[in-house]
């Protein structure tokens, strides 16, 4: 009998490799990742499509422009020629990638090109805001949970106040104020029309959603024997946080990233739809839906296309998020029976 490991025994692959392996075995998560990858690749190629295939500037009005359909030159916005001749209708989907594949909006802009550019904006805001939320939420949750006492009480109450606000109402209020004057925080200045403004607003309003559960987790962790031992041995607090606490909470924060990205994208779309998110001429899927609202009866594709993309992307992010959660916290799957 020996306590030494046998030569043939395999070493544990470690928690991260195990999680990666679990994730790769999750077909739903893989399919979602593939969908996301496709969406990201398509949006990355937006300039390529606009410049070299559609030959259009999706941010410039083409109200008096023309295009070619079936070899004939036609106006992009066609005035009604029947009855009293009231109204002007943008060209519908031609299914020709070179000429208004998905039709035009009321400014005569190529909807397909705007969808691709809009996707870049929506994904950028969604992912950046989610990342920022997770970083801020983790920091706040860890500090509050570990420090305890007055600091914890103050932070918790602030989080409670933010939590108590209806999230969209809070986002709209912040947007309306900041869209007028921009954001000035000490040396940090964000222009009113900048994409970083919706990023900052969305990141701020969702911080409690991350910080509160992580704080709870840290409250449990700080009473663990190995933390108490580290405290007892005189280890400095930053070191304890970095080496003992953070490694235990980061997987939880990571689980939140795809889910928060989906949530942030939905919020951005809602704000942009209400004209308090992304500002023209920039496009996001939310602004395109808003552009299409006045064309619902005549050109529903302008609204439906970005709507479908939002639904597809957020669904993929949610499924991927579930996969990441299952991979990083197998216990959750067992408990939840997923």
């Amino acid at each position, binding site marked *: 009998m020996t306590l030494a490991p046998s030569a043939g025994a395999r070493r544990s692959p470690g928690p991260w490799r195990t999680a990666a392996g679990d994730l790769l075995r999750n077909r739903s998560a893989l399919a979602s990742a593939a969908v996301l990858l496709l969406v990201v690749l398509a949006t990355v190629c937006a300039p390529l499509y606009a410049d070299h295939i559609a030959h259009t500037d999706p941010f410039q009005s083409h*109200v008096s422009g023309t295009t070619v359909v079936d070899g004939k030159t036609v106006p992009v916005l066609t005035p009604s020629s029947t009855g*009293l001749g*009231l109204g002007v209708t943008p060209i519908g989907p031609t299914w020709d990638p070179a000429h208004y594949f998905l039709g035009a909006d009321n400014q005569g802009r190529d909807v397909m090109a705007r969808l691709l550019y809009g996707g870049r904006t929506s994904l950028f805001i969604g992912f950046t805001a989610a990342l920022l939320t997770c970083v801020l939420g983790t920091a706040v949750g860890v500090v509050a949970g570990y420090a305890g006492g007055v600091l914890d009480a103050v932070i918790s109450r602030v989080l409670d106040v933010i939590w108590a606000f209806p999230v969209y109402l809070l986002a709209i209020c912040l947007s309306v104020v900041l869209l007028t004057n921009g954001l000035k925080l000490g040396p940090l200045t964000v222009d009113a029309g900048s994409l970083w403004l919706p990023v900052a607003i969305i990141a701020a309003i969702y911080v409690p959603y991350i910080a509160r559960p992580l704080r709870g987790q840290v409250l449990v962790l700080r009473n663990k024997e190995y933390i108490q031992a580290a405290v007892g041995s005189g280890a400095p607090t930053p070191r304890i946080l970095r080496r003992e606490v953070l490694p235990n909470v980061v997987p939880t924060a990571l689980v939140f990233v795809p889910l928060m990205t989906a949530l942030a994208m939905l919020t951005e779309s809602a704000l942009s739809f209400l004209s308090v998110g992304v500002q023209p001429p920039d496009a996001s899927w939310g602004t395109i839906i808003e552009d299409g609202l006045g064309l619902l009866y*005549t050109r529903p594709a302008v609204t439906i296309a970005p709507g479908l993309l939002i639904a597809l992307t957020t669904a993929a992010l949610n499924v991927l998020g579930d996969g990441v959660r299952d991979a990083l916290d197998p216990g959750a799957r067992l408990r939840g029976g997923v």
Partner: protein
Amino acid sequence: MSRTTRRIAPAAAVAALALTAACSSSSDSGSSSAPSSSGSGSSAFQAQHKGGTLKLVAHAAAGSFDPQVNYTLQYWQLFQSMYDGLLAFKKVGGQESFTVVPDLATAMPKVTNGGKTYTFTLRKGITFSNGKPLTTDDVVASFQRIFKVSSPTAGTFYNGIVGADACLKTPASCTLPKGVIGDAKTNTVTINLTAPDPEFEYKLAVPHAVVVPKDSPTKDAGTKPLPTTGPYTAASYDPNRALKLVRNPHFKEWSREAEPQGYPDVIDYTFGQTVESEVTAVENGQADWMFDAPPADRLSEIGTKYASQAHVNPLTAFWYATLNVHMAPFDNKLARQAINWAVDRSAVVRLYGGTNLASPACTILPPGFPGHVNSCDYTKGGGTTWRAADLAKAKALVKQSGTAGQEVGIVVQDDDVNKSIGQYLQSLLTQLGYKATLKPLSGNIQFTYIQNTKNKVQLALTSWYQDYPAASDFLNVLLSCASYHPGSDSSINISGFCDKTVDARMQAAIKTSQTDKAGADKQWGAVDQQIMGESPVVPLINPKLIDFTSTRVGNYRFSKQFYMLVGQLWVK
């Protein structure tokens, strides 16, 4: 008078001019399938059509129902069938609707004292809807009330009445002892002015000068409608729900052209529907008329499937962009001219709804309006009408001005049409080399916001609808030095354009109009062209209005002054 879609804004008053009342062409009884369907001329009352309930719908109410306070077209349109002044615009369709006729007065006033004294004889036998007879005391009290309730036009339309200065300072104690004098014995009312005002008769024919009972509250009546002299009176008014007009039991028609009796027994006006549902309600016959402009995506449907129910009429109005002449880059005349050269009016027409709903504008005075001259300084190839934009010339001017690369903020209302025109302007300015940003604001605040110089608005999209048919109502009101009030929300000269030479020419035209209306019109036309040379504004379009009515509605008549004559519609 008015601005934007159908809301009226304070106007700084004016000067001289008049109009010629020419009979218009087409007559219309019942529904029309023609794109333009004003219906004109007065016709005998057709008793077989009397009765029924006319159902009107609007997205929202228009606030106070006090005729001396409310300043919206939505209610001015109704007040035509409810209240009367000493004078009134003729209740007919077509050009003749600009004619002022005696209403509560027996005849047009006797004007003496060099145009400063107006004497009216009051009709006898007129009774308010509350049963009290109309007297000269009511007339005098009503003029005092204009100031006591701080009517929006008290300081502009009626500030020329002797004693108005004191009333404006201390409204509560307003008596106008030497300004408005009633004589019960002779049944006359005399109005004295501090100076001749050739437009005073027009000002007496708008709702702020109607006569209400002398015991009316000396504050805004709000949702409690005042007794009327006209064919209808309000039975109930809840701005969140509905307004109900019923026949005034004491009304007897005294002048068919001033105040004709109405056809429907009841007019039900409901609020709160979306514009989309308003269209559907009219299509289904659940409503007889919708106040709001139909949304863009329903226009084609209305123009084809429901063409016989759509009535399209040109308006004496223009939509325009203001260029702030006190701020870069538009403190540079070349930069301002560049915008006028660059704007594709046909694109704006498309964004508004097409050529049958608007036409390109080149001048400040709308076509068909007194003083209008066919001229177009900023069209490719020259000519008297707009043909095409000249982007190359505009870019050259921007380069010459040295303003390229500067930031320009565009302030528009946040409804679909205004916003889409704003987006077009933003795109255009970007093409010209500016860094353009768009600021859509709620229609409730945009108009006052763009007037206040403190908000530093460089370019704003707005519109102006006539108060009454006089060139000064556009040129003097919108672009005179007197209309520019820095730091105020009521600075209707939004561009801040103030040119002493132009002002002097406007004053000369006002003076001429007292004796020679045709000569004054020529002078106003020249002033219009001179201002366009300086380019403080960019005329975009002259809009038309669609009235969408149900199949059962007949006798549609369109007054150029107050639009569709509600009381003249029949539903039987």
